[in-house]
């Protein structure tokens, strides 16, 4: 029995805070429990001013954070998610796509394009956690593959920000195959001398994390949860209790699977450093 009844139980929150969802009510930090005004939180790059907990960012916030302002231009906008299996869980998949599109304005869980970062031309992909958990579907996989080929053709450094729950269950086997497809594309990009910097944010699970782990330099945001399975599957499958700490970026760094763990404030500066070194390389 849990004796410490006063300790707040940690809830698994799976949503991204937006203006629409939090109007004037202050936001409670999931880590320290302090109340924060939403404006203050946004001002602070959605990092809790009390404890440094990194809240999830929306896709547009993320692009603004990483790309130089006004330099991002999207490619492959015509690729859209479709329901190929007539899938139905609590909602039909068709309905779910429609609803998500209405809420977020997105057609797919990833936005790809080119942008300048610190003045350097790059190919950028950003996952949208707000689009069905940022899961990897057929459209997502295709967009990623095309982005990687785009970067390979133009010899651009490739930067992908991951925030995804894994493969999209609603697309069945097709979504699983996207993992193989993308990993292969990354490999041929790397072989051609390309620099691939994946940025793992909270959360990165299963297939998408596997793709990220093939990066040339792997960066993770502080406190991100990274692992082979999300909390529910872990509970379902693992017979032993796996501490949350083991899935945090910091312990992955300790175990030797990440290059750097950074604060959100320093994320862009860190990327620029690598881009500088890459641009200065002796050819």
């Amino acid at each position, binding site marked *: 029995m849990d004796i410490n009844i006063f300790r707040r139980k940690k809830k698994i929150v799976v949503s991204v805070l937006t203006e629409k969802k939090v109007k004037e009510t202050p936001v409670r930090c999931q880590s320290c429990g302090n109340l924060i005004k939403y404006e203050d939180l946004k001002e602070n790059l959605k990092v809790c001013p009390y404890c440094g907990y990194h809240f999830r960012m929306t896709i547009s916030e993320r692009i603004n954070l990483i790309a130089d302002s006004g330099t991002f231009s999207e490619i492959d906008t*015509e*690729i*859209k*998610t*479709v329901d190929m*299996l*007539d*899938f*139905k*869980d*609590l909602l039909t998949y068709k309905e779910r796509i429609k609803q998500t599109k209405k809420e977020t304005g997105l057609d*797919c869980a990833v936005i790809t394009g080119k942008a300048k970062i610190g003045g350097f031309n790059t190919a950028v992909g950003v996952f949208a956690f707000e689009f069905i958990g940022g899961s990897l579907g*057929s*459209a997502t996989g*295709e967009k990623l*593959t095309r982005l990687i080929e785009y970067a390979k053709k133009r010899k651009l450094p490739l930067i992908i920000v991951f925030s995804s729950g894994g*493969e*999209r*269950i609603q*697309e*069945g*086997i*097709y979504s*699983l*195959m*996207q*993992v*193989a*497809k993308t*990993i*292969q*594309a990354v*490999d*041929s990009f790397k072989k051609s001398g390309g620099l691939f910097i994946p940025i793992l944010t909270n959360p990165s699970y*299963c*297939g998408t*994390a*596997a*793709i990220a*782990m093939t990066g040339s330099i792997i960066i993770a945001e502080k406190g991100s949860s*990274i*692992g*082979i*399975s*999300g909390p*529910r*599957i*872990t*509970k*379902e*499958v*693992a017979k*032993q209790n*796996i*501490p949350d700490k*083991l*899935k945090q970026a910091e312990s992955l760094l300790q*175990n*030797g*699977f990440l290059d750097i763990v950074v604060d959100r404030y320093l994320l862009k500066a860190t990327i620029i450093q690598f881009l500088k070194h890459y641009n200065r390389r002796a050819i």
Partner: protein
Amino acid sequence: MKYLLPFEKSLKPLYKELEEKKKNWETTNNIEEKIQQELKKIYNNLTAYQIAQIARHPDRPNTTDYINALFEDFIELHGDKKSGDDPSIIAGMGSFKGTTVAVIGSRKGNTLKDMILCNHGMIKPEGFRKIARIVNLASTTFKSPIITFIDTPGAFVSKESEKKGQIEAVSEPILALFKAKVPIAAVIIGEGISLGALSMSIADKIIMLKYSFFSVISPEGGASILYNDRKKSEELASSLKFTAANLFNAGIVDKIVNEPIGGAHRNKEKVIKATGDAINNELETLLKENEKQLKTNRIEKYKKIGIYAD
């Protein structure tokens, strides 16, 4: 019959009768026919979840059975030469109808002790790295075709495996198989779930047994994510479209090996032989092709997978 599946309950009295008759030295033709009829009734209208249950049947022929029956002079290789050896992956060199081949498969174990040792077929990081090592060995040194047998509930989720970099390890066999300049045939013999199965399924030809399945997630796991209720796994199973027939129509699987009514566990020899023939057929055509062409074809094949609007 040692173990009856939940949907085969109606057979229980028949099997009991059969046993009693056998004890008393009476003729059993009549009752055997009855059993066959009942089986036919059940097996002609199987739901997706029932197929998953057959695929997980403890008596179903497993990788070890296939290796023992189909390969001569099989010798097992151990370890990933980095951190350890994972018994849930059986890999080695063998001779298939006269040609040397590399065999890789997931092992579930026959006895309880083996099952625990093999983690019920859940693959650890060492296992993934072992697959990659054997694939590279076959591709560079032996120049021999690779045959994989898939029967796994997925990657192992545990403290140790997370520590050893499970998430990094899964991509290694995928890349190794893409790079291999030899023919590859993957055979799905039971359950194939998520990244564990994907890591062995990158192949020129995928062969699948009729009552096996290949899915992005286990129906139980998927139900607990989507419905927050494990009991909905039956509903989810039919939505996932993971049976051999579904995947053949989707173009993921190239060949289905037929199973007798009652499943592979009711006629092991026949199914193993049919599987061997199917592998032989595929390998014969693959061996005629150019090595480099094989590799590019394989990459192209996977690049095309996916349905989206554009």
